């Protein structure tokens, strides 16, 4: 097996971007085909890696249990009195990241498919898309905090332009809001990274290090350093480690997003072009959840245990609040954006439960939400492409005019509201079960949180079914009258083809969740024992 498989996966899009830059602008069609080929190669590669991934590769704290790893010195700088700067090119995959790499490849190719009819400045668009692709892959595989941060910030830039240039009417507002929101989180993250750097030493070389795995080991902290486990330093009257945990949590929680830091999401989603909405909902939100698990929980397990109650509360609030607000939306895309808030709340709740069931359920929910939200946004895009309207009350009885589209929407809606047989059900059910189990297992979350969270499942049925009833059933009646009737054609073959893999995956994982669970179980158990110390 090629030892550089993971690097190839990450940097393939960069190569594609370079090739695109070399091709003259007149060759419009070339860009999307290059992108499609790149995406296809990545999908194959990540699929192969997923297949080869050994279920026992727990990873988390132990470097030897990571797979497809590469560990090269990257930056070595002698800084005199401050020691030697040690930054590594350190990437690897464990059960926490493997599903997301595959998910990223899948969502990317779907986003490329959804951009097929794009007309505006194709070269720039696809180059940015490829850079984004590389950054996301990098974020999911980086194990050096510095490298992680580089990829993390690199991700923002293309997104800003993709929303700001190719977006809808209020695109500049949405792009800036998105950018500032995320930057707000990550700037403070940088401070924590620096603090961690000065607290942690590499046990082999004795130099300060950005290696995340070293940061996870309490033994590697210098005795009197800022974030030392034993020193119990205070910053602004708050324990330093707690403050760092909160800062990192907020940085990632903005991405998730949690209530009340979620308002960038509806705007970004509504203004972004369909493919970018797909990427945002499908992958970007997952980076938040992934970051919380890998970094917040991994590096500050003691604080995670201590703050679990609050995380659970935030999760419950997000679930209920997102669901209620979704119920009141008129704009279909906004409704789906808020449903994302609600569904991602389950991730947080599951993570906070600190039980294997809850955590695995949360990760499963992220994977499932990855392609289901992508599917939902794609479906909204299908409608919007035709009539440039998304108001729920402007449509009625679509089932009669677009039966295939309605079938796809109904399937996706039911999948999203947690119908058994689809993946979201497994995720949500186990988050609830795990949360409930939490008090019995180690008394972290009270049982009422599980009950409150399950109300979100009820509400999701309410808003999805209500939308289904209002838009799709009944006698056809459209705001645009005959004009709309003429353009509201059923889904094309291309659109159906794009939808199929997502629905098939949702079904496959719903019917046989072991496909994903067997890969993530070991890591989940390792993470649970790291945090709960048992």
């Amino acid at each position, binding site marked *: 097996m090629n030892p550089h498989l993971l690097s190839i996966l990450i940097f393939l899009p960069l190569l594609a971007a370079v090739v695109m830059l070399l091709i003259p602008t007149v060759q419009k069609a070339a860009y999307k085909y290059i992108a499609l080929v790149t995406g296809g190669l990545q999908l194959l590669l990540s699929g192969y890696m997923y297949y080869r991934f050994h279920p026992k590769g727990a990873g988390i704290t132990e470097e030897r249990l990571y797979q497809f790893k590469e560990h090269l010195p990257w930056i070595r700088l002698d800084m005199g009195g401050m020691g030697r700067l040690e930054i590594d090119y350190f990437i690897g995959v464990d059960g926490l990241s493997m599903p997301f790499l595959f998910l990223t490849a899948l969502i990317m190719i779907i986003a490329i498919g959804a951009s097929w009819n794009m007309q505006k400045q194709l070269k720039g668009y696809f180059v940015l898309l490829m850079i984004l692709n590389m950054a996301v892959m990098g974020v999911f595989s980086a194990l050096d905090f510095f490298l992680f941060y580089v990829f993390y910030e690199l991700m923002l830039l293309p997104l800003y332009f993709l929303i700001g240039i190719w977006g809808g009417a209020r695109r500049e507002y949405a792009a800036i809001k998105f950018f500032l929101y995320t930057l707000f989180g990550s700037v403070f993250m940088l401070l924590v990274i620096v603090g961690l750097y000065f607290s942690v030493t590499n046990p082999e070389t004795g130099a300060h290090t950005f290696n995340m795995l070293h940061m996870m080991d309490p033994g590697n902290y210098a005795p009197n350093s800022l974030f030392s486990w034993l020193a119990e330093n205070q910053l602004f009257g708050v324990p330093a480690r707690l403050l760092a945990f909160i800062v990192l949590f907020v940085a990632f929680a903005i991405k998730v997003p949690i209530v009340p830091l979620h*308002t960038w999401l509806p705007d970004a989603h509504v203004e972004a072009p369909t493919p970018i909405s797909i990427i945002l909902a499908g992958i970007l939100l997952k980076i938040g959840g992934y970051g919380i698990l890998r970094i917040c929980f991994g590096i500050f397990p003691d604080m995670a245990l201590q703050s679990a109650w609050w995380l659970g509360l935030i999760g419950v609030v997000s679930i209920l609040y997102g669901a209620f607000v979704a119920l009141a939306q008129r704009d279909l895309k906004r409704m789906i954006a808020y449903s994302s808030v609600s569904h991602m709340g389950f991730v947080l709740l599951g993570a906070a439960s600190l039980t294997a069931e809850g*955590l695995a359920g949360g990760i499963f929910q992220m994977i499932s939400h990855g392609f289901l939200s992508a599917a939902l946004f794609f479906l909204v895009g299908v409608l919007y492409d035709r009539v440039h309207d998304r108001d729920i009350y402007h449509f009625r009885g679509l089932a009669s005019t677009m039966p295939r589209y309605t079938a796809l929407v109904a399937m996706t809606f039911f999948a999203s509201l947690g119908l058994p047989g689809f993946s979201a059900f497994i995720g949500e059910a186990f988050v609830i079960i795990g949360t409930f189990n939490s008090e019995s297992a180690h008394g972290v979350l009270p049982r009422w949180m599980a009950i409150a969270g399950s109300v979100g499942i009820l509400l999701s049925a309410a808003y999805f*079914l209500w939308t289904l009833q209002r838009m799709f059933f009944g006698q056809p009646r459209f705001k645009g009258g005959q004009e709309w009737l003429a353009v509201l054609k059923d889904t094309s073959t291309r659109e159906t083809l794009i939808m199929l893999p997502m629905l098939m995956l949702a079904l496959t994982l719903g019917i046989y969740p072991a496909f994903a669970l067997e890969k993530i179980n070991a890591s989940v158990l390792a993470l649970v024992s790291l945090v709960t110390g048992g």
Partner: protein
Amino acid sequence: MPQPSVTYLPFVALAAVLLPFAGSLLSAIAGRRSQSGAIAITAIAGSLLTAAYVFAQVWGNAPVHGQWQWFVIGETPFHVGLLLDNQSVLMLLLVPLIALPVHLYSVAYMKGDPGIHRYWMYLGLFCFAMMALVVADNLFLLYVCWELVGFASYLLIGFWFTRDTAVQANKKAFIVNRIGDIGLLIGIAILYAQFGTLDIRTLFDPHGLVAASVVADGQWIASGRSMPAIWLTLSGLAFLLGAIAKSAQFPLHVWLPDAMEGPTAVSSLIHAATMVAAGVFLLARIFPLFNGTALMVMACIGVFTACMAAYFALTQYDIKKILAFSTISQLGFMVAGIGMGAYHAALFHLATHAFFKCLLFLAAGAVIHEMQHLNKQYGLEIDPQDIRGMGGLRRQMPLTFTVMAIAALALGGFPLTGGFLSKDALLVHALEWGAIQPGLLRLLPYFLFAAAGLTAFYIARLIFKVFVAPPAIDRLTQIHEVGKWMLVPMLFLAACSLFLVFSLHPFDVGRAWLTQGMVPDTLPPTLPAAHTLVPVTATLIALLMAWLAWKWYVKGAYPLRTTGLLYKLSLNQGYLDKLYDLAVISPVLRLSHVLREADRYLVDGTIDGLGRLGRLLAALAGWMDQYVVDGTVRLIGKIAYGLGNVLRRTQTGRVQYYLFTMFFIVLIVLLYQMIIHA
């Protein structure tokens, strides 16, 4: 108990379960080509045969358990498995046994419907989900099927999706059922947290984990884990909530009357064996879990529902609504029966009820079908479901009348029917249970008697109004009997509604093979007198009620005012829908609107406000920079410039002026020096 002779039984049962699903899939693949329903009917017939085989092998024998690993989450494995014991094989047989006649009936009933290919697909899915539910060997799988049943019913109730009432009804059905699903999920979570497994056998065996768990010192203790004892009650109530929603018990029964918007054949299936039966089945399945409190709540809810729904049924005019409330009422009997510990009697009633209720619906469907036909033929606009527009149909539809009368007798609990046996069993047991209860609980059985009386009255009213009373309009004499595709299934079900299917002895329920197969371990002491007294009393009450209905509706001696409060309360179903609308739905929607506005103006407003504040600060800093910092610099320049401008006036260019200035300055310096030195 003897072991069944064959080891491949789980696979046979699996085939029985999967056949309808395969039929559904094939129908889906065939799309519009599968209009005849041949695939679905073949599948359900095959399913019936295999289920019958399984039933024959398992009934009365030791349970058969087959399972395969499904997935592992954390360290806990979950299985897909079948648990074939008396309860489950009974239901496994019952579902296709009811579904096959419904399928056949649908061939004629749904003929010519443009969406019929979808109909067969949904029907197959419905049967599959229900059959899988009854054989599921663990609660998680059961939950999966539970929701699938709800989903399939959603599809079927909203089958005519262009009708607004239909799509509102199916939404309502699904959401109300979702409330129950949450109860079920929480119940599952409680059991999982306490026992670490969801396997039904491990949990609910007579020597299972639930039986072994104890309540001590306010703690519920089981195999090393414990939680406060309240959770034992709560788990029972959570599962009860699930059953209440699925089996349409008060207060979550509101979806069932609306679910009439689906095709009548579907209603018959929903009401007989596939949907509402699931709740009762679940309660019987996990019976050992319920403690005294939970059972008491269950009994109260069951009795209340039985009376309430019977009361509502008294004044309904829609033929299907009457039957819907009748179902709710009968399910109330069953739930009450389980609450009183007699799950064998409840399941028995479930089985007999399945036949006669299915038959009632099919017969009602036949009437509606012919009424629609009449409408079409003569261009009339009678509501085909309103019993006020019917009457005297027994002459035109004698066979339909006969079968419906048999079913009505069974529902009313008249002797020689299956309904008599099962209702008897329930009532007798209720009396025995009541005898050992404290306080007001003793009265519960008598309410059941009252409900039974009301049942006889409203079903008699239905039959008399539709078939016996004088025709509402003359055209009704032009109506025809239905075709044989619809008649044959009804005749079959009529035969099954008689006592012979269940017991050779028409009066002694104790000899019914069905109840003997699953008698609970603990039963209250028998009251020998009740066994003779109850059948006689119940029959007398029923006869009296039927006679009353005859007098009121056939003889036209109707004594009641239709404006009375009680009448209106019954007609409007206790105003419960309006109450829920006011008390639940509107507040939820209002809350969601308030939150949306809060989100827009408060949360997002704060963020936007922060943004604006940032811009304001930036503007301020910009102003400072422009006018204060840069201003100072420019001021210095301006001063120099101005000074220069003033001083340049001295540069006249005239030499003599310069010289004078020089002289003058020298003079001043000199003078200054002189003054200083002086």
